[in-house]
């Protein structure tokens, strides 16, 4: 990925110094991706917007606690979005684990999907995920986007908990190797 200016680390340092323009830049850089992630998890635009606002405000308040060893700024920010969105999904009183087919076919949009395809970095990650054996890919997608715990996945997929953990481990290892080959 080409380096952006100012770099993400510098943006977070400015955020910690309460620089509002840094927050605006961070949003312009990652707001769309953050919203897309929240929407993919929640399937509702209003709830997704609330999550994005909450996550960026949280980053605004928490930039001082950010440590590079916990991942790069982009991964850190998106992990906050993910935590918040999954938290909401699990807190919904009506939430019950949906049938696997439903959770796998969250709303998508052909045009935007095509736009994502045009981004080389995104395409590389999509390829790495799609190259996984189906059981590993489904396990990772349902855990990350579907908000299922590994125990719930074990019940839903009808396999032992150890198998779920193994699929996660091997799937993520393969993704790492695939991404390293392309960098």
């Amino acid at each position, binding site marked *: 990925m080409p380096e952006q200016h100012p770099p993400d680390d510098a943006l977070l340092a400015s955020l910690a110094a309460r620089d509002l323009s840094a927050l605006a830049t961070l949003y312009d850089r990652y707001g769309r991706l953050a919203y897309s992630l929240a929407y993919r998890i929640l399937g509702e635009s209003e709830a997704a917007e609330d999550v994005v606002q909450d996550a960026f405000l949280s980053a605004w308040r928490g930039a001082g606690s950010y440590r590079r060893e916990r991942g790069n700024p982009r991964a850190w920010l998106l992990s906050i979005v993910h935590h918040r969105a999954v938290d909401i999904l699990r807190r919904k009183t009506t939430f019950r684990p949906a049938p696997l087919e439903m959770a796998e076919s969250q709303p998508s949009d052909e045009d935007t999907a095509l736009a994502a395809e045009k981004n080389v970095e995104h395409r590389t990650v999509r390829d790495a995920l799609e190259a996984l054996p189906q059981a590993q890919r489904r396990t990772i997608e349902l855990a*990350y986007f579907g908000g299922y715990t590994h125990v719930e996945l074990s019940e839903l997929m009808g396999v032992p908990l150890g198998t779920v953990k193994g699929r996660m481990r091997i799937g993520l290892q393969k993704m790492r190797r695939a991404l390293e080959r392309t960098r």
Partner: protein
Amino acid sequence: MNEHVQDDLEAYALGALDPADAERLAQHLALCASCSNDAASLAEIVGTLPDTVPLREPRPALRDRLLGAATAEARQATPRRSLRWSFGAVRLSRIAFAGLAAAVIVLGAADVDAYRRMVTVAAERDAYNRTLESLREGARLWYMAGKDSFAGSGGTLYEPRADGKQPFVLFHDLPPINEGQVLTIWLVSPDSAWARAATFRPNGQDIQVVQINTEVAGFDRCAVTLDDSPSGKHGTIVMESRIAPPSTAP
């Protein structure tokens, strides 16, 4: 615990542990560099998964809403310096109390129970003064509710906005704990990393103030664990806050 933790690192990175297990693991990561490195490496891989999502545009108003909320928060966070005098008043009240207590002992005018009652009243008054002071300065408050054997107790973390003022936790109704055990106050960052903030034992009084000797800014939750030692393995979570409110106290 290490084997169990390593077994769950992938699920943790994917957000696929239930909240209690995730918190326990996060506490372990705060103390274990090896597991923490593995977790960071997995977080980088999991951090690429959003790139597989079809991109969508949020409404343009979201940007304005976010920046408006941050601007309002920044304004509220500005400390009001004209009230600096009142911390001095707290110190003065302590000195005055110490003198009074000494006089009571010297004159033999009170028994041990009376002395204890006076200590409690003084502690409550000091705690009240500190709280009032922080509220005047626009402190951020995080309430932690006790659970299980700590149900009915609680603690409020006060983060004073004024420069140079230390954050502290005002606990109430702490139950006694076993000999050798301690309570640990933890600060939790938005991405669930845990940092040890203070270790203490209940002093047996209704109200207890514990000073936090670390920076609170940047964390958005807090919790208390009951531990068998001041370092090393963490114990059970006996108190925890929800996400801290963004606004300051009135």
